[in-house]
C-alpha cells in the first residue's frame, strides 16, 4: 500500500494500525535495530520471525515505547508515539504478552486479571473475567494462587488472559506459546484464530513456524536487526532457501 492511498481512504479501513519506519535502536552503545520498517493493517495477523538475538523483542519494545528508537518513527492508530510513555501507547488498544511472561509476584491470579480489565475504545468488553476463565479453566482452579508460584505454563496462560482482559484492538505476543503443553498450545492457536476472526489485529513471535505460517497473513523475517523478508505465507513457502538460511528449517 502506498501513502497516497492511505491518506485518501477512510482511516478505519486503510490506515495501518501500526506504522513504524526506519527504526534504529540501541542498548547503550550497541546498535540493535538497523532501520526496521513494519506496518500492521486492521484485522491483520503479522508474524515476526528470526533466530535468537535478531531483534524481534527489541522491535516490539520499540513499538511500545519501552525502547526509544534513536532514529525512525512509530505511528499507532495514525498518531505518532514519539513523546508518549509506554502506558499511553498501550492505552490506544494494545494487549501485550511479553517474553518471560511478566507475572507479578505476590499478586494472585484473580488480581492479575482484574487489575488489567478495561473496556475497549467503544466501551465494550467482549473479554470478561468469565470468558477468560472459560478459555483457561486451569486458571479458574488457581484463582487465589500467587502468580509467581504458578507453573510456567499456567503463567503463560495468565499472561495471555491478562492481555485479553484489556479488550485490545491489537495483540502483541512475544513467544506466544512458550511453555505450553501441546493441547493448550493448540487451544491458543485456535483462540488467536478466533481473535483474528473478530477483527483484532496481532503481531506474534513464536517458535512454531508451521502454526505461524497457517495463521498469519504476513511474515517479517529479521536478521541482525534488519528486515530481510516481508511477505505472505505463500511467498515464504515458495522461498525455501529463506527459511533454511534464516530460520534453520531444513
Amino acid at each position, binding site marked *: 500500500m502506498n501513502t497516497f492511498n492511505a491518506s485518501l481512504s477512510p482511516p478505519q479501513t486503510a490506515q495501518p494500525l501500526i506504522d513504524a519506519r526506519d527504526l534504529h535502536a540501541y542498548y547503550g552503545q550497541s546498535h540493535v535495530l538497523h532501520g526496521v520498517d513494519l506496518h500492521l493493517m486492521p484485522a491483520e495477523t503479522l508474524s515476526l520471525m528470526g*533466530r*535468537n538475538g535478531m531483534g524481534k523483542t527489541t522491535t516490539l519494545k520499540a513499538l511500545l515505547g519501552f525502547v526509544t528508537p534513536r532514529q525512525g518513527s512509530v505511528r499507532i492508530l495514525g498518531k505518532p508515539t514519539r513523546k508518549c510513555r509506554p502506558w499511553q501507547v498501550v492505552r490506544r488498544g494494545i494487549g501485550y504478552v511479553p517474553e*518471560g511472561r511478566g507475572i507479578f509476584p505476590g499478586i494472585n491470579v484473580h488480581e492479575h486479571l482484574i487489575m488489567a480489565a478495561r473496556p475497549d475504545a467503544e466501551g465494550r468488553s467482549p473479554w470478561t473475567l468469565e470468558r477468560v476463565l472459560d478459555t483457561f479453566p486451569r486458571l479458574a482452579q488457581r484463582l487465589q494462587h500467587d502468580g509467581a508460584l504458578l507453573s510456567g*505454563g499456567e503463567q503463560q496462560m495468565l499472561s495471555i488472559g491478562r492481555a485479553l482482559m484489556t479488550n485490545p484492538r491489537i495483540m502483541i505476543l512475544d*513467544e506466544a506459546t512458550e*511453555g*505450553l*503443553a501441546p*493441547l493448550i498450545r493448540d487451544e491458543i492457536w485456535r483462540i488467536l484464530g478466533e481473535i483474528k476472526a473478530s477483527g483484532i489485529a496481532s503481531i506474534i513471535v513464536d517458535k512454531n513456524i508451521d502454526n505461524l505460517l497457517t495463521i498469519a497473513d504476513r511474515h517479517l523475517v529479521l536478521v541482525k536487526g534488519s528486515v530481510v523478508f516481508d511477505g505472505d505465507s505463500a511467498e515464504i513457502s515458495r522461498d525455501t532457501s529463506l527459511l533454511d538460511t534464516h530460520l534453520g528449517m531444513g
Partner: protein
Amino acid sequence: MNSALLSTRGLTCRFGGLTAVDRVDFDVRPGQVHAILGPNGAGKSTLINLLSGELRPSEGEIHYRQRPIHGLPAHRVARLGIGRSHQKTNIFPRLSCLENCRLAARIHLGGVIASWRSRATARQVDERAEQALATCQLSHRAATPANAMSYGEQRQLQIAMVLATAPTLMLLDEPLAGMGREETARVTELLGALRGDYTLVLIEHDMDSVFALAERITVMVDGRVLETGTTDTIRGSSKVRDVYLGRHQQEEA
C-alpha cells in the same frame, strides 16, 4: 529397580492444600534419556525441584545410587553430580557468559579451594567453560554480560551452564523453551549426542524433540504418574492423547 540411577518412592509434595506431586514412583536408568510429559501444572517442575533438593518432599523417598538423598540441601545434591536447568531463566545477570559457565564448571572441579591449589585444575575450569560455550555456539558472546543478551540466548546460556557442570545426571526443565527453530534443532542434536555418557531427565513440551530424544517417558497428570513406558507405548496411548498430546499431534506422529 536396582539398576536405577535415581528412584523415588511415594514422593509427595504439598503446598498448603494443594498436592503438586502425589505419591510418585519414578526410576531413571543410567545412560538413558527419560522424558517427563504432562499438562501445565501437572507437577513436573515440582518433581524436578524435589529431585534437585530445592524443595523438600512432604513425604516419600529419593534414592540416588541406592543412597537416600531426600532432605539434603540443594548444594549437597548438586555436589553428588546432579545438575539441572530451570524452567525460568536462571543465570547470573551481571556476569559475562564465560563467567557464568566458569562458576558452573568450578564447583564440579573441586570448588574454589581446588582451583587455588592447582593451576592445572584452574585451567581445566576455564577450558571446560569455554568448551561449553562453544558447544552452544555462544563463544562470540563470551564477554557479554548475560543480561545484555536476548531471551533465547539466555536460554542457551543456561544449557551451556549445565554442560559446564558435566553432571552424571542432568535434570532439564524445558531446555528448549524460548529457543528459535534452528537453535532447538541444534540443542536437540547436542542432547542426543550426550545420550549414553550422561543420564538425562527432560521436561519438554516440544514433541518433535521429545520423541527424537527420549527412550522412556513418564506422563504426569495432577501430580500423579499417569503412565510410564517406552516412547512408542506412550505415543500410542490413548489416555496420553486425551490429556496431553491432543489429536493433532497424534496424527502427525
